[in-house]
């Protein structure tokens, strides 16, 4: 069937964009079918069907307490994301530009990245107490590392001829950073932001699961304790859709940058 599709597409001169749309639809349908199958195999009590999950999701969204949860998570997440992004990019620029600093810090960053950060939760909690700052801290420690590492890579991989050109036109170091280094690094920084986005969300949710009386993470925790699989799946689905949506946007931005790059 795929050969027919591609031949027809070529004959009709269908654009790649519309083909990737149809591919996406096919994939979604395939995943839904797989999900339904697993649900039948495991039993709907253990793994709710897609339909029941969707219904539950709608119910949750319409619930009057939901906006509050959403706001709580939203504030913490956005705060964590801003700190991770700004902090990560700045740190990455500095570590990328100063070779020694980068060489010194890189293994330390990677070791921290490899740590099961959930085991730091007691420390974070003990130091920040329950509440917003703990959640935000958790989100930041998850997301800031990949953003830093990617930015560092972007600066280090910048073609040397850019630096020589900046010298040739007598740019000040600040002008160099602003007009050459930063724009050159943007595509890879965006790639880092994609990963940082997902991980910051993860960190914030985990933080909420343990450090909060409100928010979506908290809802997840309660559902896990009650073994309320419908709610678990509904929330997981909503989070997944949200993350995918943002990822698609960031991907599109990345592609646009890459086209001019």
């Amino acid at each position, binding site marked *: 069937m795929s050969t027919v599709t591609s031949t027809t597409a070529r004959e009709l001169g269908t654009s790649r964009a519309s083909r990737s749309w149809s591919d996406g639809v096919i994939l979604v349908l395939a995943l839904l079918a797989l999900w339904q199958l697993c649900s039948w195999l495991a039993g709907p009590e253990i793994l709710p069907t897609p339909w029941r999950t969707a219904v539950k999701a709608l119910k949750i969204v319409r619930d009057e307490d939901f906006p509050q949860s959403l706001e709580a998570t939203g504030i913490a997440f956005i705060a964590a994301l801003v700190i991770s992004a700004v902090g990560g990019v700045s740190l990455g620029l500095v570590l990328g530009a100063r070779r020694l600093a980068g060489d010194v810090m890189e293994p330390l960053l990677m070791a921290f990245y490899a740590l099961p950060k959930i085991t730091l939760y007691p420390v974070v909690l003990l130091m920040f107490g329950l509440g917003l700052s703990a959640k935000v801290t958790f989100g930041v420690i998850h997301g800031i590392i990949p953003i830093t590492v990617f930015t560092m890579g972007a600066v280090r991989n910048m073609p040397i001829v850019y630096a020589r050109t900046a*010298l040739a*036109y007598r740019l000040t170091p600040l002008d160099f950073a602003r007009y050459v280094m930063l*724009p050159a690094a943007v595509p890879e920084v965006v790639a880092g932001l994609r990963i940082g986005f997902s991980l910051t969300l993860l960190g914030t949710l985990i933080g909420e699961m343990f450090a909060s009386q409100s928010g979506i993470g908290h809802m997840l925790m309660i559902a896990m304790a009650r073994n309320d699989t419908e709610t678990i799946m509904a929330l997981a689905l909503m989070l997944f859709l949200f993350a995918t949506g943002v990822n698609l946007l960031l991907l599109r931005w990345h592609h646009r940058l890459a086209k*001019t790059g």
Partner: protein
Amino acid sequence: MGPLRKPGTPLSVVSANPTSPAGPQIHATLTDVTRIYPGSKGRPSFHALGPVSLNLRAGEFFSVVGPSGCGKSTLLDVMAGLNPASSGSVIFEGVPVHAKVPDGVAVVFQEDATFPWLTVYDNAAFGARRAGLPEPEIRERVEHALAFMGLKAFTQSYPAQLSGGMRQRVCIARAMVVRPRLMLLDEPFGALDQQTRLLMGDEMLKLWRDTGATVMLITHSIDEAVLLSDRIGVMSACPGRFIETIETNWPRERDSNTALDARFGELTARVWGLLRGEAMKALGSQT
């Protein structure tokens, strides 16, 4: 910050003929310049260049030709102030050059130095903008430079949409815009195919005549050096030193048809005669 001499001034005023009583005006001088990269743990020091001495005459087109890895690019870097000399002195317009690029010098590199996030127009305007020139002045210069380099139709395009040769033209246009008095070209056509190279050579000569700047071209192509230059500095294998300087005595109004001149073959043979042994040395010493 205009050109050193007005375009159209007869050649005899700035004479390439060393026996003329007026004598050539010297634009830049290298005196016993060496570049030795100091060693570190596990790596011996590396003597890349010199000692080299050179008097660059104002308004001349000077080529440096030599085998790969002989220090030609190092020579250009030292002259431009991109790389400090280990010993000896570099003087440009009477002022010593050390670790900073002086005003009035422009460099075109071998690699593609166009910024992919800027349009062709913004790329060409880059140097002038960072130097703080007013926008109307910049617009005039950029439009002239881009038209001169045949890029008028591509002002709003991005480098990714252009071929390698066109991107190099953008880099040359960018250099034109700042009206340099000395243009340093580090194998600018190295990544291009032969036919494009010949055409770019013609454009370089036009630019040289139009601006009246002094041009120093680094190349490994003997043909290119002989075709384009007033004088050729033949460089030895590493550490690079000048073996000989050859005068071509071509007329100022020249283009790639110079290849048809009887003396072209003579000069090329002469350069190759000097270089052959050095090239073999360079080939053998490459690890």
